[in-house]
């Protein structure tokens, strides 16, 4: 239980996917122009990551059964693309208001590195445990639970980073910055300070 909690907090804070690796920078800079958009993107991404990891965990077992592990990237990207398509259709049918809010961000998720990064972890569970210092005593069930917790933690970590950045950016647009630095450049420098807080500041807590 404590190992699961530690994994979740690590994925959320100290090895935050945006600040430690970094993955998902395109959408991090692109969608953070307003708070509302960042919430929509974060929710959609969390849902897609969870669903894609769930499917790819079993798909990876199938691939290993047939010894075609080298097909993993191709299969996983297809799964992600179809999950995104499916979620888009589902949301459109059952919740038009949510679809309006998420609408344009859903197709973008296919090319978001965060999803593929999480899903790719399922191909090598021993390396995954090694990088997070976890000993798994529950066999396959443990694998399954840990990877799902990791998926949710990472996606929420991305959500957190995106939301914080959007909040800061709304204030920053009003600030007097030098000409060339306005917008993305000062945003990146601000992200550097956020990264120091996340990676070096929270280091050792978990």
């Amino acid at each position, binding site marked *: 239980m404590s190992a699961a909690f530690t994994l979740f907090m690590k994925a959320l804070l100290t090895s935050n996917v945006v600040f430690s690796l970094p993955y998902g920078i395109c959408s991090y800079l692109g969608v953070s122009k307003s708070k509302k958009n960042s919430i929509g993107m974060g929710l959609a991404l969390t849902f897609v990551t969870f669903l894609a990891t769930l499917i790819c965990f079993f798909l990876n077992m199938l691939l290993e059964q047939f010894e075609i592990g080298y097909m993993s990237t191709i299969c996983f990207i*297809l799964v992600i693309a179809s999950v995104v398509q499916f979620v888009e259709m589902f949301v459109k049918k059952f919740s038009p208001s949510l679809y309006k809010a998420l609408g344009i961000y859903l197709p973008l998720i296919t090319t978001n590195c965060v999803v593929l990064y999480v899903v790719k972890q399922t191909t090598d569970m021993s390396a995954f445990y090694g990088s997070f210092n976890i000993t798994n005593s529950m066999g396959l069930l443990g694998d399954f639970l840990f990877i799902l917790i990791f998926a949710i933690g990472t996606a929420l970590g991305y959500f957190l980073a995106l939301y914080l950045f959007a909040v800061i950016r709304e204030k920053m647009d009003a600030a007097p910055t030098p000409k*060339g630095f306005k917008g*993305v450049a000062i945003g990146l420098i601000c992200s550097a300070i956020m990264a120091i807080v996340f990676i070096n500041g929270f280091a050792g807590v978990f």
Partner: protein
Amino acid sequence: MEKQSKKSIFINPLIKENAILINLLGMCPVLGVTTSINNALGMGVAVILVLFCTNTFISLIRKWVPDEVRIPVFIVIIACFVTMIEYLMKAFTPDLASNLGLFIPMITVNCIILGRAEAFASKNTVVDSMLDGLGTGIGFLGSCLLLAFFREVLGTGGISFNNPFTGKQLFSFLPLEAIKMPIFVQTSGAFMMFGLILGVFFAIQLKIEESKKLKEKKAKENLAKEVK
């Protein structure tokens, strides 16, 4: 869009329409792997190869792909080429492949590659797409190297270079090792350095545009005087 000449298709993406510095696309690998010039070079060459192959292939089959399913088709083609490159790199440059790690399969979801496939290769002829792929790739490599140079010099105090095929160190020149700042090798340093580079780049661009406008204004005024 008007028809471009072959030369401008190749030259434009190098600086004028640089995918990283101007369009701000596909920045994850740029920030992630530029800890050393070695890694940046490996990543850049891998992206050039993938971009060249996918652009060529997609423009070859562009007439047979139905419009509704083009994105899944493109992304599968890209994933195939990326997997090929990944296994080639694992076979011939094992050190580089382990340094780059997950960033190699992540080329699949790099916005530059899907962006060029969608915006250029699916509409233009094969030769044009090849040139565009090469140009965009070299532009990507250039900006990777630029960032990697500053990060490595500031972060480790100099430059060292390994032979990617054997892993042996070719040369190492570390004159500033006593005052190195390791934060620049970390991700936070990447954000900071890239922010500074972008800011300076944008500022220079604004200056150039301003001086162009001034010149045009002066030319118009001169013309008006001559007419008088």
